[in-house]
Protein backbone atom coordinates (compact mmCIF):
# COMPACT_ATOMS: atom_id res chain seq x y z
CA UNK A 1 0.00 0.00 0.00
CA UNK A 2 1.11 3.52 -0.58
CA UNK A 3 2.33 5.68 2.21
CA UNK A 4 0.04 8.20 3.80
CA UNK A 5 1.58 11.52 2.94
CA UNK A 6 -1.04 13.91 4.16
CA UNK A 7 -0.38 14.11 7.83
CA UNK A 8 -0.61 12.28 11.14
CA UNK A 9 -2.94 9.34 11.47
CA UNK A 10 -4.93 10.46 14.45
CA UNK A 11 -8.64 11.00 13.79
CA UNK A 12 -8.51 9.27 10.43
CA UNK A 13 -11.71 9.19 8.47
CA UNK A 14 -12.59 5.97 6.71
CA UNK A 15 -10.75 6.34 3.47
CA UNK A 16 -7.42 7.06 5.03
CA UNK A 17 -6.71 3.42 5.62
CA UNK A 18 -6.35 3.09 1.89
CA UNK A 19 -2.91 4.47 2.34
CA UNK A 20 -2.22 2.85 5.61
CA UNK A 21 1.26 1.64 6.16
CA UNK A 22 2.32 0.59 9.63
CA UNK A 23 4.04 3.67 10.91
CA UNK A 24 7.10 3.69 13.10
CA UNK A 25 6.25 3.60 16.79
CA UNK A 26 7.74 7.05 17.15
CA UNK A 27 5.01 8.49 15.00
CA UNK A 28 2.30 6.51 16.72
CA UNK A 29 3.28 7.11 20.32
CA UNK A 30 4.57 10.18 22.06
CA UNK A 31 8.23 10.21 22.91
CA UNK A 32 8.77 8.52 26.21
CA UNK A 33 11.10 9.81 28.88
CA UNK A 34 14.39 7.99 28.86
CA UNK A 35 16.72 6.72 26.18
CA UNK A 36 14.30 6.02 23.38
CA UNK A 37 16.95 5.06 20.84
CA UNK A 38 18.24 2.33 23.15
CA UNK A 39 14.74 1.05 23.66
CA UNK A 40 14.17 1.05 19.95
CA UNK A 41 17.38 -0.86 19.41
CA UNK A 42 16.17 -3.81 21.49
CA UNK A 43 12.39 -3.72 21.45
CA UNK A 44 11.64 -7.40 21.81
CA UNK A 45 13.90 -8.37 24.69
CA UNK A 46 13.84 -6.03 27.67
CA UNK A 47 16.24 -6.96 30.46
CA UNK A 48 15.01 -9.38 33.09
CA UNK A 49 15.45 -6.74 35.77
CA UNK A 50 13.15 -4.40 33.93
CA UNK A 51 10.50 -7.10 33.58
CA UNK A 52 10.58 -8.12 37.20
CA UNK A 53 10.37 -4.74 38.82
CA UNK A 54 11.30 -1.10 38.71
CA UNK A 55 10.01 -0.68 35.21
CA UNK A 56 10.32 2.68 33.55
CA UNK A 57 7.85 4.21 31.14
CA UNK A 58 10.33 3.54 28.34
CA UNK A 59 10.37 -0.17 29.21
CA UNK A 60 6.63 -0.34 29.10
CA UNK A 61 6.52 1.53 25.86
CA UNK A 62 9.02 -0.91 24.45
CA UNK A 63 6.89 -3.84 25.57
CA UNK A 64 3.82 -2.16 24.18
CA UNK A 65 5.45 -1.61 20.84
CA UNK A 66 6.63 -5.17 20.79
CA UNK A 67 3.12 -6.41 21.62
CA UNK A 68 1.65 -4.26 18.92
CA UNK A 69 4.08 -5.41 16.31
CA UNK A 70 3.66 -9.04 17.36
CA UNK A 71 -0.06 -9.04 16.54
CA UNK A 72 0.37 -7.03 13.36
CA UNK A 73 3.31 -9.19 12.31
CA UNK A 74 1.36 -12.36 13.08
CA UNK A 75 -1.37 -11.07 10.80
CA UNK A 76 1.16 -10.42 8.04
CA UNK A 77 2.26 -14.06 7.93
CA UNK A 78 1.25 -16.09 4.89
CA UNK A 79 -0.31 -19.52 5.02
CA UNK A 80 -0.98 -22.00 2.29
CA UNK A 81 -4.53 -22.19 1.00
CA UNK A 82 -5.13 -24.41 -1.99
CA UNK A 83 -2.45 -23.61 -4.48
CA UNK A 84 -1.68 -20.12 -3.28
CA UNK A 85 -0.46 -18.33 -0.21
CA UNK A 86 -2.75 -15.97 1.68
CA UNK A 87 -2.00 -13.60 4.50
CA UNK A 88 -3.77 -14.24 7.77
CA UNK A 89 -4.74 -10.59 7.73
CA UNK A 90 -6.53 -11.00 4.40
CA UNK A 91 -8.64 -13.86 5.74
CA UNK A 92 -9.45 -11.95 8.93
CA UNK A 93 -10.38 -8.83 6.97
CA UNK A 94 -12.61 -10.78 4.59
CA UNK A 95 -14.40 -12.47 7.48
CA UNK A 96 -14.87 -9.21 9.34
CA UNK A 97 -15.94 -7.37 6.20
CA UNK A 98 -18.42 -10.00 4.98
CA UNK A 99 -21.38 -8.78 7.06
CA UNK A 100 -21.22 -5.26 5.64
CA UNK A 101 -23.12 -5.96 2.37
CA UNK A 102 -25.77 -8.03 4.16
CA UNK A 103 -28.32 -5.14 4.26
CA UNK A 104 -28.07 -4.87 0.47
CA UNK A 105 -28.42 -8.64 0.21
CA UNK A 106 -31.63 -8.46 2.27
CA UNK A 107 -33.20 -6.20 -0.36
CA UNK A 108 -32.05 -8.28 -3.32
CA UNK A 109 -35.19 -10.47 -3.73
CA UNK A 110 -37.42 -7.40 -3.70
CA UNK A 111 -35.16 -5.79 -6.30
CA UNK A 112 -35.12 -8.85 -8.56
CA UNK A 113 -38.89 -9.26 -8.39
CA UNK A 114 -39.48 -5.49 -8.57
CA UNK A 115 -41.62 -5.76 -5.44
CA UNK A 116 -42.48 -2.12 -4.88
CA UNK A 117 -44.50 -3.00 -1.80
CA UNK A 118 -41.47 -4.41 0.02
CA UNK A 119 -39.43 -1.38 -0.99
CA UNK A 120 -42.13 1.05 0.11
CA UNK A 121 -42.66 -0.62 3.48
CA UNK A 122 -39.25 -1.74 4.66
CA UNK A 123 -36.38 -0.32 2.62
CA UNK A 124 -35.97 2.55 5.11
CA UNK A 125 -35.54 0.15 7.98
CA UNK A 126 -33.37 -2.34 6.14
CA UNK A 127 -30.98 -0.09 4.27
CA UNK A 128 -31.22 2.85 6.68
CA UNK A 129 -30.32 0.68 9.64
CA UNK A 130 -27.66 -1.01 7.50
CA UNK A 131 -26.09 2.36 6.77
CA UNK A 132 -26.12 3.16 10.49
CA UNK A 133 -24.46 -0.16 11.34
CA UNK A 134 -21.76 0.40 8.71
CA UNK A 135 -21.17 3.96 9.89
CA UNK A 136 -20.65 2.83 13.46
CA UNK A 137 -18.34 0.00 12.40
CA UNK A 138 -16.40 2.48 10.28
CA UNK A 139 -16.13 4.85 13.24
CA UNK A 140 -15.19 1.99 15.57
CA UNK A 141 -11.85 1.42 13.87
CA UNK A 142 -10.05 4.45 15.29
CA UNK A 143 -11.01 3.78 18.94
CA UNK A 144 -9.96 0.16 18.53
CA UNK A 145 -6.59 1.25 17.17
CA UNK A 146 -6.23 3.60 20.13
CA UNK A 147 -7.10 0.88 22.60
CA UNK A 148 -5.25 -2.10 21.15
CA UNK A 149 -2.39 -0.43 19.34
CA UNK A 150 -3.02 -2.83 16.47
CA UNK A 151 -3.46 -1.67 12.91
CA UNK A 152 -4.16 -4.78 10.87
CA UNK A 153 -7.92 -4.12 10.81
CA UNK A 154 -7.63 -0.50 9.67
CA UNK A 155 -8.58 -1.34 6.02
CA UNK A 156 -12.04 -2.25 7.29
CA UNK A 157 -12.73 1.44 7.83
CA UNK A 158 -12.76 2.13 4.12
CA UNK A 159 -14.81 -0.97 3.37
CA UNK A 160 -17.47 -0.16 5.95
CA UNK A 161 -17.52 3.43 4.72
CA UNK A 162 -18.17 2.33 1.16
CA UNK A 163 -20.90 -0.05 2.30
CA UNK A 164 -22.42 2.74 4.37
CA UNK A 165 -22.52 4.89 1.25
CA UNK A 166 -24.06 2.08 -0.80
CA UNK A 167 -26.78 1.46 1.79
CA UNK A 168 -27.63 5.14 2.24
CA UNK A 169 -27.71 5.88 -1.48
CA UNK A 170 -29.82 2.74 -2.05
CA UNK A 171 -32.19 3.87 0.68
CA UNK A 172 -32.52 7.34 -0.86
CA UNK A 173 -33.08 6.01 -4.38
CA UNK A 174 -35.70 3.52 -3.23
CA UNK A 175 -37.43 6.19 -1.14
CA UNK A 176 -37.48 8.58 -4.09
CA UNK A 177 -39.32 5.95 -6.15
CA UNK A 178 -41.57 4.12 -3.72
CA UNK A 179 -42.43 6.48 -0.83
CA UNK A 180 -45.92 7.93 -0.90
CA UNK A 181 -45.10 11.48 0.24
CA UNK A 182 -46.39 14.30 -1.96
CA UNK A 183 -44.14 16.55 -4.03
CA UNK A 184 -42.60 14.28 -6.62
CA UNK A 185 -39.12 12.82 -6.30
CA UNK A 186 -37.77 15.72 -4.24
CA UNK A 187 -40.80 15.63 -1.97
CA UNK A 188 -40.26 11.94 -1.39
CA UNK A 189 -36.61 12.32 -0.40
CA UNK A 190 -36.72 15.71 1.32
CA UNK A 191 -40.38 16.54 1.90
CA UNK A 192 -40.11 16.15 5.68
CA UNK A 193 -37.42 17.55 7.93
CA UNK A 194 -36.19 14.11 8.99
CA UNK A 195 -35.97 13.17 5.33
CA UNK A 196 -34.10 16.36 4.61
CA UNK A 197 -31.47 15.31 7.16
CA UNK A 198 -31.18 11.96 5.41
CA UNK A 199 -30.94 13.72 2.08
CA UNK A 200 -28.08 15.90 3.35
CA UNK A 201 -26.30 12.79 4.61
CA UNK A 202 -26.56 11.16 1.20
CA UNK A 203 -25.41 14.33 -0.51
CA UNK A 204 -22.36 14.35 1.76
CA UNK A 205 -21.59 10.68 1.54
CA UNK A 206 -21.37 10.69 -2.26
CA UNK A 207 -18.38 13.06 -2.55
CA UNK A 208 -16.73 11.42 0.45
CA UNK A 209 -16.88 7.97 -1.08
CA UNK A 210 -15.87 9.34 -4.49
CA UNK A 211 -12.69 10.81 -2.97
CA UNK A 212 -11.73 7.75 -0.95
CA UNK A 213 -9.07 6.66 -3.44
CA UNK A 214 -5.36 7.32 -3.99
CA UNK A 215 -5.91 9.64 -6.92
CA UNK A 216 -8.28 11.90 -4.99
CA UNK A 217 -5.95 11.91 -1.99
CA UNK A 218 -3.08 13.00 -4.17
CA UNK A 219 -5.13 15.68 -5.87
CA UNK A 220 -6.68 17.08 -2.71
CA UNK A 221 -3.41 17.02 -0.77
CA UNK A 222 -3.72 18.55 2.67
CA UNK A 223 -7.43 19.24 2.13
CA UNK A 224 -8.21 15.57 1.67
CA UNK A 225 -8.22 14.77 5.36
CA UNK A 226 -10.42 17.75 6.16
CA UNK A 227 -12.77 16.72 3.42
CA UNK A 228 -12.97 13.18 4.70
CA UNK A 229 -13.83 14.53 8.12
CA UNK A 230 -17.22 15.44 6.71
CA UNK A 231 -18.00 11.91 7.89
CA UNK A 232 -18.37 13.46 11.33
CA UNK A 233 -21.02 15.82 9.94
CA UNK A 234 -22.90 12.76 8.69
CA UNK A 235 -22.57 11.29 12.16
CA UNK A 236 -24.15 14.43 13.61
CA UNK A 237 -26.86 14.60 10.97
CA UNK A 238 -27.78 11.02 11.78
CA UNK A 239 -28.61 12.15 15.32
CA UNK A 240 -30.92 14.86 13.91
CA UNK A 241 -32.45 12.33 11.52
CA UNK A 242 -33.25 9.88 14.31
CA UNK A 243 -34.50 12.52 16.75
CA UNK A 244 -36.83 13.94 14.10
CA UNK A 245 -37.96 10.44 13.17
CA UNK A 246 -38.91 9.20 16.62
CA UNK A 247 -38.25 11.96 19.11
CA UNK A 248 -36.62 11.42 22.46
CA UNK A 249 -39.44 9.39 23.93
CA UNK A 250 -41.07 6.09 23.18
CA UNK A 251 -44.58 4.76 22.98
CA UNK A 252 -45.79 3.52 26.29
CA UNK A 253 -45.54 -0.24 26.45
CA UNK A 254 -44.53 -0.56 22.83
CA UNK A 255 -41.30 -0.57 20.95
CA UNK A 256 -40.08 2.90 20.23
CA UNK A 257 -40.32 2.33 16.56
CA UNK A 258 -43.19 -0.03 16.21
CA UNK A 259 -46.21 -1.86 17.47
CA UNK A 260 -45.36 -5.15 19.05
CA UNK A 261 -44.78 -4.69 22.74
CA UNK A 262 -41.91 -6.82 23.92
CA UNK A 263 -41.53 -4.80 27.06
CA UNK A 264 -38.25 -3.04 26.35
CA UNK A 265 -39.34 0.10 24.57
CA UNK A 266 -36.33 2.10 25.74
CA UNK A 267 -33.81 -0.27 24.22
CA UNK A 268 -35.66 -0.17 20.90
CA UNK A 269 -35.62 3.63 20.71
CA UNK A 270 -33.34 4.42 17.84
CA UNK A 271 -31.88 7.65 19.16
CA UNK A 272 -30.98 5.97 22.44
CA UNK A 273 -29.22 3.23 20.50
CA UNK A 274 -27.36 5.88 18.54
CA UNK A 275 -26.41 7.74 21.73
CA UNK A 276 -25.22 4.54 23.42
CA UNK A 277 -22.92 3.75 20.51
CA UNK A 278 -21.76 7.32 20.00
CA UNK A 279 -20.72 7.78 23.63
CA UNK A 280 -17.91 5.27 23.21
CA UNK A 281 -16.98 6.34 19.68
CA UNK A 282 -16.86 10.03 20.59
CA UNK A 283 -15.11 9.73 23.94
CA UNK A 284 -12.24 7.71 22.54
CA UNK A 285 -11.77 10.25 19.75
CA UNK A 286 -11.18 13.17 22.07
CA UNK A 287 -7.49 14.14 21.93
CA UNK A 288 -7.11 14.52 25.73
CA UNK A 289 -8.60 11.05 26.22
CA UNK A 290 -6.31 9.57 23.60
CA UNK A 291 -3.33 11.21 25.30
CA UNK A 292 -4.48 9.80 28.62
CA UNK A 293 -4.74 6.31 27.18
CA UNK A 294 -1.30 6.56 25.58
CA UNK A 295 0.15 7.79 28.88
CA UNK A 296 -1.34 4.80 30.71
CA UNK A 297 -0.01 2.47 28.03
CA UNK A 298 3.43 4.01 28.42
CA UNK A 299 3.24 3.54 32.17
CA UNK A 300 2.33 -0.11 31.66
CA UNK A 301 -1.02 0.43 33.34
CA UNK A 302 -3.18 -0.75 30.50
CA UNK A 303 -5.44 -2.51 33.00
CA UNK A 304 -6.53 0.93 34.14
CA UNK A 305 -7.56 1.82 30.60
CA UNK A 306 -9.56 -1.37 30.25
CA UNK A 307 -11.28 -0.91 33.59
CA UNK A 308 -12.17 2.68 32.75
CA UNK A 309 -13.32 1.96 29.23
CA UNK A 310 -15.26 -1.23 30.09
CA UNK A 311 -18.56 0.46 31.12
CA UNK A 312 -18.48 2.77 28.09
CA UNK A 313 -17.81 -0.18 25.82
CA UNK A 314 -20.58 -2.19 27.48
CA UNK A 315 -23.05 0.60 26.73
CA UNK A 316 -21.80 0.58 23.13
CA UNK A 317 -22.31 -3.18 22.85
CA UNK A 318 -25.87 -2.97 24.21
CA UNK A 319 -26.82 -0.16 21.82
CA UNK A 320 -25.19 -1.88 18.88
CA UNK A 321 -26.82 -5.22 19.68
CA UNK A 322 -30.26 -3.64 19.49
CA UNK A 323 -29.42 -1.94 16.19
CA UNK A 324 -28.30 -5.31 14.85
CA UNK A 325 -31.46 -6.90 16.20
CA UNK A 326 -33.51 -4.36 14.25
CA UNK A 327 -31.39 -4.95 11.17
CA UNK A 328 -31.72 -8.72 11.27
CA UNK A 329 -35.45 -8.86 11.88
CA UNK A 330 -36.40 -6.13 9.40
CA UNK A 331 -33.89 -7.51 6.93
CA UNK A 332 -35.32 -11.03 7.08
CA UNK A 333 -38.80 -9.59 6.62
CA UNK A 334 -37.56 -7.76 3.54
CA UNK A 335 -35.70 -10.80 2.25
CA UNK A 336 -38.83 -12.94 2.47
CA UNK A 337 -40.76 -10.09 0.84
CA UNK A 338 -43.04 -10.05 3.83
CA UNK A 339 -42.18 -6.54 4.94
CA UNK A 340 -42.76 -5.43 8.47
CA UNK A 341 -44.21 -1.95 8.87
CA UNK A 342 -43.14 -1.76 12.51
Amino acid at each position, binding site marked *: MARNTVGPRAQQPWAEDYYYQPASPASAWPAAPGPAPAAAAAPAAPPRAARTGGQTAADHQTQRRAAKSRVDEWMEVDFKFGGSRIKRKAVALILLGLPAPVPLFFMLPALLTLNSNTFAVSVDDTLGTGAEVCLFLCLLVTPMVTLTGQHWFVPLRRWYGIMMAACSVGDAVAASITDDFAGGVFGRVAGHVFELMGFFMVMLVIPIVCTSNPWAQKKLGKYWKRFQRLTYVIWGLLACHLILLEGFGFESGDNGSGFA*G*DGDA*VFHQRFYQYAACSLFLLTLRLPP*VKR*WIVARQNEGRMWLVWVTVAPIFAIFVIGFAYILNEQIFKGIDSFTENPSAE
Partner: protein
Amino acid sequence: MTSEMYAPGGRSTITLGGVIITAVSCLSALLLIAAIIYASGIGAREQAALTAAGCEPTLTPLMQQCTTQPILAGQYRALMTPAAQQLSTDAAAYAASEEDNLAVAEAALTAEVTSERALVAKLGALALPPAMRPLAKALISANQARATLTAEQARSSSLSRMRSFNHRVQLATATVETDMKLLQAAIDTPVRGA
Protein backbone atom coordinates in the same frame (compact mmCIF):
# COMPACT_ATOMS: atom_id res chain seq x y z
CA MET B 1 -7.66 9.18 40.68
CA THR B 2 -7.34 7.31 37.45
CA SER B 3 -6.21 10.35 35.56
CA GLU B 4 -3.02 10.88 37.49
CA MET B 5 0.05 11.37 35.44
CA TYR B 6 3.40 11.03 37.10
CA ALA B 7 5.76 13.90 36.46
CA PRO B 8 9.53 13.43 36.77
CA GLY B 9 9.53 14.92 40.27
CA GLY B 10 7.05 12.37 41.55
CA ARG B 11 4.29 15.01 41.62
CA SER B 12 1.02 13.84 40.16
CA THR B 13 -1.26 15.93 37.99
CA ILE B 14 -4.81 15.43 36.90
CA THR B 15 -5.21 15.57 33.17
CA LEU B 16 -8.26 16.69 31.24
CA GLY B 17 -8.38 13.36 29.42
CA GLY B 18 -8.44 11.50 32.71
CA VAL B 19 -11.26 13.63 34.02
CA ILE B 20 -13.30 13.21 30.83
CA ILE B 21 -12.92 9.46 30.58
CA THR B 22 -13.55 8.96 34.28
CA ALA B 23 -16.71 11.06 34.12
CA VAL B 24 -17.96 9.25 31.03
CA SER B 25 -17.07 5.92 32.58
CA CYS B 26 -19.01 6.73 35.74
CA LEU B 27 -21.97 7.92 33.66
CA SER B 28 -21.82 4.70 31.64
CA ALA B 29 -21.69 2.62 34.79
CA LEU B 30 -24.80 4.39 36.09
CA LEU B 31 -26.53 3.86 32.75
CA LEU B 32 -25.59 0.19 32.89
CA ILE B 33 -27.10 -0.18 36.34
CA ALA B 34 -30.23 1.62 35.15
CA ALA B 35 -30.37 -0.65 32.09
CA ILE B 36 -30.08 -3.76 34.23
CA ILE B 37 -32.87 -2.55 36.52
CA TYR B 38 -35.01 -1.72 33.49
CA ALA B 39 -34.24 -5.04 31.81
CA SER B 40 -35.32 -6.94 34.91
CA GLY B 41 -38.87 -5.67 34.33
CA ILE B 42 -39.04 -6.56 30.64
CA GLY B 43 -40.89 -9.83 31.15
CA ALA B 44 -43.59 -8.31 33.32
CA ARG B 45 -44.07 -5.37 30.97
CA GLU B 46 -44.28 -7.67 27.99
CA GLN B 47 -46.88 -9.86 29.66
CA ALA B 48 -48.90 -6.80 30.62
CA ALA B 49 -48.76 -5.46 27.06
CA LEU B 50 -49.81 -8.81 25.60
CA THR B 51 -52.66 -9.14 28.06
CA ALA B 52 -53.80 -5.59 27.36
CA ALA B 53 -53.78 -6.22 23.62
CA GLY B 54 -55.52 -9.57 23.98
CA CYS B 55 -52.83 -11.18 21.92
CA GLU B 56 -52.60 -14.85 21.25
CA PRO B 57 -49.41 -16.82 20.65
CA THR B 58 -47.78 -15.70 17.49
CA LEU B 59 -49.22 -16.36 14.07
CA THR B 60 -45.92 -15.55 12.43
CA PRO B 61 -42.57 -17.30 12.56
CA LEU B 62 -40.78 -14.09 13.54
CA MET B 63 -40.41 -14.86 17.23
CA GLN B 64 -43.01 -12.25 18.03
CA GLN B 65 -45.46 -13.29 20.67
CA CYS B 66 -48.22 -11.32 19.09
CA THR B 67 -49.32 -10.66 15.56
CA THR B 68 -50.89 -7.25 15.69
CA GLN B 69 -53.48 -5.95 13.29
CA PRO B 70 -50.98 -3.71 11.43
CA ILE B 71 -48.60 -6.65 10.99
CA LEU B 72 -51.41 -8.82 9.66
CA ALA B 73 -52.61 -6.04 7.36
CA GLY B 74 -49.05 -5.62 6.08
CA GLN B 75 -48.75 -9.33 5.39
CA TYR B 76 -52.06 -9.39 3.56
CA ARG B 77 -51.12 -6.31 1.54
CA ALA B 78 -47.74 -7.78 0.65
CA LEU B 79 -49.50 -10.87 -0.61
CA MET B 80 -52.37 -9.24 -2.50
CA THR B 81 -50.72 -6.20 -4.10
CA PRO B 82 -48.31 -8.02 -6.44
CA ALA B 83 -50.93 -10.70 -7.19
CA ALA B 84 -53.52 -8.08 -8.11
CA GLN B 85 -50.99 -6.30 -10.33
CA GLN B 86 -50.13 -9.53 -12.11
CA LEU B 87 -53.79 -10.49 -12.61
CA SER B 88 -54.55 -7.02 -14.01
CA THR B 89 -51.67 -7.36 -16.47
CA ASP B 90 -52.87 -10.81 -17.56
CA ALA B 91 -56.47 -9.59 -17.92
CA ALA B 92 -55.33 -6.62 -20.02
CA ALA B 93 -53.32 -8.97 -22.26
CA TYR B 94 -56.38 -11.16 -22.75
CA ALA B 95 -58.65 -8.15 -23.46
CA ALA B 96 -56.21 -6.93 -26.09
CA SER B 97 -56.17 -10.24 -27.97
CA GLU B 98 -59.59 -11.83 -27.41
CA GLU B 99 -60.89 -10.50 -30.73
CA ASP B 100 -58.14 -11.49 -33.11
CA ASN B 101 -55.36 -13.67 -31.72
CA LEU B 102 -56.21 -17.05 -30.25
CA ALA B 103 -52.64 -17.99 -29.32
CA VAL B 104 -51.96 -14.77 -27.43
CA ALA B 105 -55.34 -14.88 -25.70
CA GLU B 106 -54.70 -18.48 -24.67
CA ALA B 107 -51.26 -17.56 -23.31
CA ALA B 108 -52.74 -14.65 -21.38
CA LEU B 109 -55.41 -16.86 -19.84
CA THR B 110 -52.85 -19.54 -18.97
CA ALA B 111 -50.76 -16.90 -17.22
CA GLU B 112 -53.88 -15.76 -15.40
CA VAL B 113 -54.54 -19.29 -14.20
CA THR B 114 -50.98 -19.57 -12.93
CA SER B 115 -51.30 -16.25 -11.07
CA GLU B 116 -54.63 -17.27 -9.54
CA ARG B 117 -53.28 -20.61 -8.36
CA ALA B 118 -50.23 -18.93 -6.88
CA LEU B 119 -52.51 -16.53 -5.03
CA VAL B 120 -54.59 -19.43 -3.75
CA ALA B 121 -51.45 -21.13 -2.45
CA LYS B 122 -50.26 -17.96 -0.71
CA LEU B 123 -53.65 -17.31 0.83
CA GLY B 124 -53.69 -20.84 2.12
CA ALA B 125 -50.32 -20.31 3.77
CA LEU B 126 -51.32 -17.00 5.41
CA ALA B 127 -51.78 -17.50 9.13
CA LEU B 128 -54.98 -15.82 10.21
CA PRO B 129 -56.86 -15.62 13.49
CA PRO B 130 -59.76 -18.08 13.84
CA ALA B 131 -62.36 -15.37 13.26
CA MET B 132 -60.99 -14.64 9.79
CA ARG B 133 -60.40 -18.17 8.62
CA PRO B 134 -63.94 -18.74 7.17
CA LEU B 135 -63.56 -15.55 5.14
CA ALA B 136 -60.18 -16.66 3.85
CA LYS B 137 -61.58 -20.09 3.05
CA ALA B 138 -64.41 -18.52 1.03
CA LEU B 139 -61.91 -16.35 -0.86
CA ILE B 140 -59.72 -19.34 -1.62
CA SER B 141 -62.74 -21.33 -2.89
CA ALA B 142 -63.87 -18.42 -5.09
CA ASN B 143 -60.36 -18.05 -6.47
CA GLN B 144 -60.11 -21.76 -7.17
CA ALA B 145 -63.45 -21.72 -8.98
CA ARG B 146 -62.32 -18.77 -11.06
CA ALA B 147 -59.01 -20.43 -11.84
CA THR B 148 -60.81 -23.62 -12.97
CA LEU B 149 -63.12 -21.59 -15.18
CA THR B 150 -60.26 -19.60 -16.65
CA ALA B 151 -58.34 -22.80 -17.35
CA GLU B 152 -61.37 -24.17 -19.18
CA GLN B 153 -61.62 -20.91 -21.12
CA ALA B 154 -57.96 -21.15 -22.07
CA ARG B 155 -58.56 -24.57 -23.61
CA SER B 156 -61.15 -23.15 -26.06
CA SER B 157 -60.57 -24.04 -29.68
CA SER B 158 -61.84 -20.77 -31.13
CA LEU B 159 -62.01 -17.12 -30.16
CA SER B 160 -65.81 -17.04 -30.19
CA ARG B 161 -65.96 -20.01 -27.85
CA MET B 162 -63.35 -18.36 -25.65
CA ARG B 163 -65.37 -15.14 -25.48
CA SER B 164 -68.47 -17.13 -24.54
CA PHE B 165 -66.82 -17.74 -21.15
CA ASN B 166 -66.41 -14.04 -20.46
CA HIS B 167 -69.71 -13.54 -18.68
CA ARG B 168 -69.18 -16.52 -16.38
CA VAL B 169 -65.64 -15.39 -15.64
CA GLN B 170 -66.94 -11.91 -14.80
CA LEU B 171 -69.41 -13.40 -12.33
CA ALA B 172 -66.65 -15.50 -10.77
CA THR B 173 -64.46 -12.39 -10.56
CA ALA B 174 -67.27 -10.50 -8.84
CA THR B 175 -67.51 -13.27 -6.25
CA VAL B 176 -63.75 -13.12 -5.67
CA GLU B 177 -63.88 -9.34 -5.28
CA THR B 178 -66.73 -9.55 -2.77
CA ASP B 179 -64.84 -12.13 -0.70
CA MET B 180 -61.66 -10.05 -0.95
CA LYS B 181 -63.48 -6.97 0.36
CA LEU B 182 -64.93 -8.93 3.27
CA LEU B 183 -61.53 -10.32 4.25
CA GLN B 184 -59.84 -6.95 3.76
CA ALA B 185 -62.44 -5.28 6.00
CA ALA B 186 -61.93 -7.94 8.68
CA ILE B 187 -58.17 -7.52 8.56
CA ASP B 188 -58.35 -3.74 8.62
CA THR B 189 -60.53 -3.78 11.72
CA PRO B 190 -58.47 -3.90 14.91
CA VAL B 191 -59.45 -7.16 16.50
CA ARG B 192 -58.61 -8.93 19.69
CA GLY B 193 -56.86 -12.21 19.33
CA ALA B 194 -55.13 -11.26 16.14
